[in-house]
């Protein structure tokens, strides 16, 4: 059937076409103040049909696998084609990529009572942390996607993509002061995730952050040296550098990294990698959403820009054989170049030395999110846990700090890189052009000589 639909999609020309079959099951539980308030879940299923003609894309989808509906979608997508190309027949060859997320017991299939118990343990751990914890909410979301990609160039590859994510938030109160803390994690894992990271960890961690924030004081405003803690801080790299290296922006010449391949774009201490192959990580993929088996992309090596991340359209534009970074939210969306797990490679500095080297600055530990203006690399990040560094020592916790800077400028200002590389526990979701995909980030402890800290104390 796939061959018939692909032939139909290219009936009026076009360079190539692909089909993206998706069957998605989800199961979610939300616990509010110690009680399961709502159980949820559902099934979503459909097929996306894409026809590519040069840089132009025709796209349609059907919420079924009915052949007539798919042929109709193929006709719709084919309207983009303006003659040329086209093929007589399609021969699909099945490929079986290596599995980077083998899972024995999937959370989406777990007994309801077992999932409820995980949330109970998280909830109890947060409450036990202190009598100042006045409210705890927790959620457990499991999603499993079966995908199958077939393309007019013969690719035919399926993948089974599990995902689990636990989130806990806690509210602490002392006198009139109320503060929140949260923690979460997961990845392309099964129930085994909770053997490595027990639910109690996220409960305790959410409570700890809320309690720390009870003592947080106003942050300074102005340019200061900033030490980014290992792990979570990778989100800064994702936003400040990663997006600008997605090839679609460079094809359109709207990225600040346009025409910079081979040039120095960061301090020589900086090496940045996008790695879809990390076992069990939230951003990992065995196969991208265009049917290509991806490999590790070395983006910046010792400060020099080496590669962009490509989907099929941009790879063709830049005359590259291999893409591998084409991802999409669902069958309702065409793919585009996206990150998977993006991290900075470890360096040689001792993390303690990095903190000791700062006389007055900020230690950034946990982030709630960030945003970048792709065209010039200006970024903003919000901290949910940050501290003042005074005389080489971490001292007072700071209230909701923002860091603002410019990607290339900040990367030039990296003066120390720790040997303590850590991958952030899986909780990040990246949004681009209205499509969300799960990603992983990672970072060793690093020092950036100057970033603007958006506090309130002048």
């Amino acid at each position, binding site marked *: 059937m796939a061959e018939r639909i692909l032939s139909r999609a290219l009936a009026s020309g076009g360079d190539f076409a692909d089909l993206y079959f998706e069957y998605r099951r989800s199961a979610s539980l939300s616990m509010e103040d110690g009680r399961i*308030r709502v159980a949820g*879940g559902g099934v*979503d299923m459909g097929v996306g049909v894409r026809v590519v003609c040069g*840089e132009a894309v025709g796209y349609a989808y059907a919420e079924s696998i009915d052949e007539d509906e798919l042929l109709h979608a193929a006709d719709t997508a084919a309207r983009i084609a303006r003659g040329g190309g086209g093929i007589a027949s399609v021969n699909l060859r099945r490929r079986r990529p290596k599995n980077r997320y083998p899972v024995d017991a999937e959370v989406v299939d777990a007994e309801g009572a077992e999932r409820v118990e995980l949330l109970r343990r998280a909830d109890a751990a947060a409450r036990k942390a202190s009598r100042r914890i006045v409210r705890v909410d927790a959620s457990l979301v499991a999603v499993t996607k079966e995908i199958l990609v077939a393309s007019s160039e013969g690719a035919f590859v399926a993948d089974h993509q599990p995902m689990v994510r636990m989130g806990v938030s806690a509210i602490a109160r002392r006198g009139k002061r109320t503060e929140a803390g949260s923690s979460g994690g997961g990845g392309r894992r099964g129930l085994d995730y909770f053997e490595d990271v027990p639910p109690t960890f996220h409960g305790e961690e959410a409570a700890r952050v809320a309690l720390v924030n009870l003592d947080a004081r106003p942050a300074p*405003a102005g340019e200061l040296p900033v030490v980014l803690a290992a792990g979570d801080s990778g989100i800064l790299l994702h936003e400040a550098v990663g997006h600008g290296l997605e090839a679609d922006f460079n094809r359109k*010449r709207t990225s600040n990294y346009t025409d910079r391949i081979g040039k120095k774009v960061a301090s020589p201490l900086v090496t940045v990698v996008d790695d879809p192959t990390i076992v069990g990580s939230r951003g990992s993929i065995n196969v991208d959403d265009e049917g290509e088996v991806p490999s590790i992309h070395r983006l910046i090596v010792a400060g020099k820009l080496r590669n962009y991340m490509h989907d099929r359209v941009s790879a063709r534009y830049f005359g590259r054989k291999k893409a591998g970074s084409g991802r999409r939210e669902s069958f309702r969306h065409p793919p585009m170049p996206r990150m998977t797990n993006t991290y900075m490679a470890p360096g040689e500095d001792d993390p303690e030395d990095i903190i000791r080297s700062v006389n007055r600055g900020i230690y950034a530990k946990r982030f709630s999110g960030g945003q970048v*203006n792709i065209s010039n690399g200006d970024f903003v990040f*919000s901290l949910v846990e940050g501290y003042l560094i005074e005389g080489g020592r971490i001292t007072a916790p700071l209230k909701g700090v923002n860091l603002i800077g410019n990607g290339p400028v900040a990367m030039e200002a990296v003066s120390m890189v720790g040997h303590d590389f850590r991958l952030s526990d899986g909780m990040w979701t990246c949004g681009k052009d209205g499509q969300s995909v799960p990603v992983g980030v990672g970072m060793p402890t690093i020092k950036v000589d100057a970033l*603007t800290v958006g506090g309130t104390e002048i």
Partner: protein
Amino acid sequence: MPLSRKVERRSRELADLAAWSVERLQAMGAEHCEVGVASGRELEVSVRAGRPELVKEASSSGMSVRVIVGERVATSSTTDLDRAALEDFFRRALEMARLAEPDPLALPPDPKELARRIRPLDLFDPRTDRIDAAAALARAERAERAALRHDRRITASEGASFGRSSAVSALATSGGFLGTAAGTYQSLAVQAVADDEGGKKRNGVYWTGARFVEDLERPADVGREAARRAIRFLGARKIDSGKMPVVFDHEAARSIVGLVASCVLGDAVYRRRSFLADKLGKRIAPKFVTIVDDPHLPRAPGSRAYDGEGRATRRNVVVRDGVLESFLLDTHSARRLGLEPTASAAGGGSIPHATTSNFFVRKGRRTPKSLLRGIDRGLYVVRMMGFGFDPVTGNFSRGAEGFLIEGGACTVPVGEITISRNLGELLLDIEGVGNDLDHRTAIASPSLRVAEMTIAGR
């Protein structure tokens, strides 16, 4: 304007399906249920450098149900509306409810409180679905061309896109409510890019959107405005840190008002995730500030005749003359808080929670220009970045772009800075409200002048 016959037929079909589903669910053991069914059509096109880049067309439909068995709640959704498949889907939803804990507060409203008649609102434009891909591409091309031709300093375009969508929906509840609604929306957006000194790029975005085709701004005007917005940032620079008055243009102000909206929703209030939780009946802004949630505005994007539980919607004054008069509540959050519901429940069949309709600050008498008057040195903010807001404390800190105000007028462009202030203090410190309210978006605000904020820059 009367709906087209086709839409009326589609509405009837969906209403029949929703009513049948409620009957089946009740027969299968649901004590209470809500069933939302929707079907929609969409077209999305984009052009870049004068050439089509994407044509995406699809129709979709889906059902969401909320079931309650023994005071236990489950929600689920599906896109497979085949009646045999639905029976199976209902069975799984009812099974899922067993996982939740009994919650008497989760029961639906008393049938006496449900809407008897559906207020007609002018939300559906039969012309929308008739815009074909060629016409949509032509609009986008015109807009992009106008942007590129507006000024020689515009060097690239991230493209122009046109999208249209139409949706018909029905809601049936076990309390006896049955209603249908239909709406359309279309928008045209352009992003222009200008090259600044030192290779930095500046982008400018402008868009128009409306429920009715005739209410859209002209494509060429949209393109020219996007170009102007890119050029005005050429040469933007940091300013020194300090405290100064800030004027938010109506787009930046909208995003502040969106934060206020998120803190008056019932869920945020009873979960203590709102700095306004204890402020009911208290002054939270000066006397000349009134904030309204009005679902009955003709042709507005957030308008609706009934809420997700089948109550007739009503105009709610949230802040009257500076005093917090009401939260926005669905049945569940109202019971939690011991207050009366405000007919603000979100879409039928979802986890019940409150949402906004058209939420806006009532316009004042002052022109945006006159709001700058008397400011010796201040900041005019037109764009913000990042997510630096903690609803629990109200602490606010975001990246900002705009212009320096000197001697009552805008002078040089400013970027790469953050502005901070606790939102509770910011609201009390509003000094002026502009007369430039537009309802292009469901959350809206006129320009606002705030006496003082902290700017973090150099």
